[in-house]
């Protein structure tokens, strides 16, 4: 314990009288200080006591901790001992587990297989969803790591798939060819053959060509600079929905290709884009371009046709096409022209290709010519058959001439050639409608006759087509033909012959024909009948 601080403010001892006031002043001045000092002393004592007690407490705790540490040290030592003891056992167990893993797998596999199989059966969709991403990734990794193995594994499947696809395509091709061949040998076939010939190809080439059908799916007319759609046509049912966006993208692609590959220096442009079986044929003009989406083999002359179409369009509407800024009112309706172009090209999705008008007329003309030739051939055949008996008479001919008053006359000549060359005539003295006579004679080159001098017309007509001779003798040359039903005038009658006259577009004709082929509308007067030599 510290003693209170001494008051050393005075250097000399004061006198007794002065001490009291001084003490009073001192006590007044130092009272607060003394109080503070005492308070500090009290606190110090309290702190000292507390520190002491805490020190004692800490000493106790340290002792406890030391005991605990000792216990842990012992425990650690014990654990080390256990570890040393267990290590061989653990090693033995590990070895055992490793050795028995195959058995473990064998025991677990059936359980797992059963679980997976049951899950697939019960929840196939969930299983597919769960395995899908993993499968994709697994295949990707497998292909990356062992491409060769994967190729070998997949080859049978892919090979078979490709084979199947090719076989199907070939079958389809074959079906098309069969269909074409059937059509070729049908009534339509002759027309197709004629068409093929007209087009300068064989029917087989045309059939093969038609087996690869050409069709137009879409046709766009697009403003060249902006890519705005000017007109659009789709002959089939498959319309591209965003035709205006397609137009824009196609234009962007054209520009991109031109700038990338042509550096924008030359005039070359993208004129075709191919995607699978579809192709986009592009025909450019100054203000607009045409894009035609097609499938199959394009017909010959398609590009030229498109070029002509675009050129004609520019001739008519170039200003409108160029100045179009999106207002439809400023643009002519070009859709019908596109539709017409599609029809002209014949690339509709259904129906065979149509022929041009000129070609149709040509074919019609050919058909008519063919019919005419057939008719002529028929006539010639009929005529030849009809005249055959006269040209080559039978050995025992008989001739029956039976003129009647009715306009129809029937006569059946019968010839009896006499080898001696002596003619025998049995003519009727007069020629009456009811007269029936059967002359038998042998034509002789020396035979003479005198026909009537003045021809008088008597109405008659040819019962059949018949050869005409310059004189009444079968030995004479056939100089003309009298066609069936031709009206004639009978000028005279001699024996079985009639001299007839008729006219047609070429003028008047005259000559002798066998009377049996002439049907009289009125009887011939007797004076027009020349008597036979025996008369």
């Amino acid at each position, binding site marked *: 314990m510290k003693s209170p601080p001494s008051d050393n403010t005075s250097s000399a001892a004061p006198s007794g009288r002065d001490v009291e006031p001084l003490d009073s002043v001192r006590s007044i001045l130092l009272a607060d200080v003394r109080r503070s000092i005492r308070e500090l002393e009290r606190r110090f004592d309290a702190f000292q006591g507390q520190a002491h007690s805490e020190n004692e407490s800490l000493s106790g705790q340290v002792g406890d901790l030391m005991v605990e540490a000792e216990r842990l040290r012992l425990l650690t030592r014990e654990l080390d001992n256990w570890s040393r003891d267990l290590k061989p056992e653990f090693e033995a167990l590990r070895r055992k587990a490793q050795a028995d893993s195959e058995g473990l797998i064998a025991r677990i596999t059936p359980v797992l297989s059963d679980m997976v199989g049951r899950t697939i059966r019960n929840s196939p969709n969930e299983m597919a969803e769960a395995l899908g991403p993993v499968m994709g990734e697994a295949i990707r990794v497998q292909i990356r790591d062992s491409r060769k193995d994967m190729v070998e594994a997949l080859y049978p499947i892919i090979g078979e798939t490709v084979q199947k696809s090719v076989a199907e395509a070939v079958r389809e091709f074959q079906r098309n060819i069969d269909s074409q061949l059937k059509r070729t040998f049908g009534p339509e076939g002759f027309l197709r053959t004629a068409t093929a010939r007209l087009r300068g190809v064989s029917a087989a080439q045309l059939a093969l060509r038609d087996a690869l059908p050409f069709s137009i799916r879409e046709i766009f007319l697009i*403003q060249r*600079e*902006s*890519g*705005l*759609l*000017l*007109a659009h046509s789709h002959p089939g049912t498959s319309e591209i929905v*965003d035709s*205006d*966006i397609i137009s*824009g*993208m196609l234009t*962007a*692609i054209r*520009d*991109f290709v*031109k*700038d*990338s590959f042509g550096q*924008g220096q030359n005039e070359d442009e993208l004129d075709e884009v191919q995607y699978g079986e579809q192709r986009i044929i592009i025909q450019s003009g100054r203000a607009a371009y045409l894009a035609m989406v097609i499938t199959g083999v394009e017909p010959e002359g398609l590009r030229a046709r498109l070029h002509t179409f675009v050129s004609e369009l520019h001739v008519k509407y170039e200003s409108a096409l160029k100045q179009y*800024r*999106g*207002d*439809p009112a400023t*643009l*002519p*309706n*070009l*859709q019908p022209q596109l539709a017409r172009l599609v029809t002209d090209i014949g690339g509709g999705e259904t129906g065979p290709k149509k022929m041009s008008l000129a070609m149709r007329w040509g074919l019609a003309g050919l058909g008519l010519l063919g019919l005419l030739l057939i008719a002529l051939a028929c006539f010639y055949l009929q005529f030849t058959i009809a005249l055959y008996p006269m040209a080559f008479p039978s050995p025992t001919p008989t001739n029956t001439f039976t003129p009647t008053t009715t306009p129809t006359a029937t006569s059946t000549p019968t010839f009896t050639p006499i080898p001696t060359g002596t003619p025998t005539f049995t003519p009727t003295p007069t020629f009456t409608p009811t007269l029936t006579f059967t002359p038998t004679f042998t034509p002789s080159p020396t035979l003479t006759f005198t026909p009537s001098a003045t021809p008088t017309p008597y109405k008659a007509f040819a019962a059949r087509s018949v050869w005409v001779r310059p004189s009444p003798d079968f030995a004479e040359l056939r100089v003309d033909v009298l066609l069936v039903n031709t009206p004639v005038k009978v000028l005279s009658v001699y024996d079985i012959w009639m001299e007839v006259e008729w006219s047609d577009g070429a003028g008047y004709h005259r000559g002798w024909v066998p009377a049996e082929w002439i049907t009289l509308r009125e009887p011939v007067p007797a004076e027009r009948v020349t008597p036979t030599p025996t008369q």
Partner: protein
Amino acid sequence: MPSIAQKKICLLGEFAVGKTSLARRFVEGRFDDRYLSTIGVKISRRVIERSSGNLNLLVWDLSGSDEFNDQIQANYLRGSSGALIVCDLTRRETLAGFQRYADRIRAVGLDIPLVFIGNKMDLVEERAISDAELQSVAETFQSPCLLSSAKTGENTETAFLRLAEMMEARG
């Protein structure tokens, strides 16, 4: 013949200013964004109703990448009736794109309405371009300037409709 009026508009701006996001907000897209990185353009469409009738807006979203040279972009710009030029409010350097793309449009001989857009207005804390600066550039071209956010959709529609209105006024 198209049944309704159609207008081609272009979206221009530096790389990553949010052009594609703005377009995606506005249109019903069909094509993948890959087209932007392959041929430098992606085209979308939206039909909007106007007092004068329906209008088919074909939005050509042009790549801001330097991979696509000026010539290709010039080709893509041809035939446009209007353009939206976009900058990123959080990147000061993209403001220069306003001038650059507007000049490019003039260079191909187009005198079309322009709308300037300061995009990403939702990133207030990161903003690096002031309204006054935007306005100053826009006034140079006597064109409106809008703040937008493709993220929140704020003013996106307005910007396109404003451009449509200006195009209609031009006829």
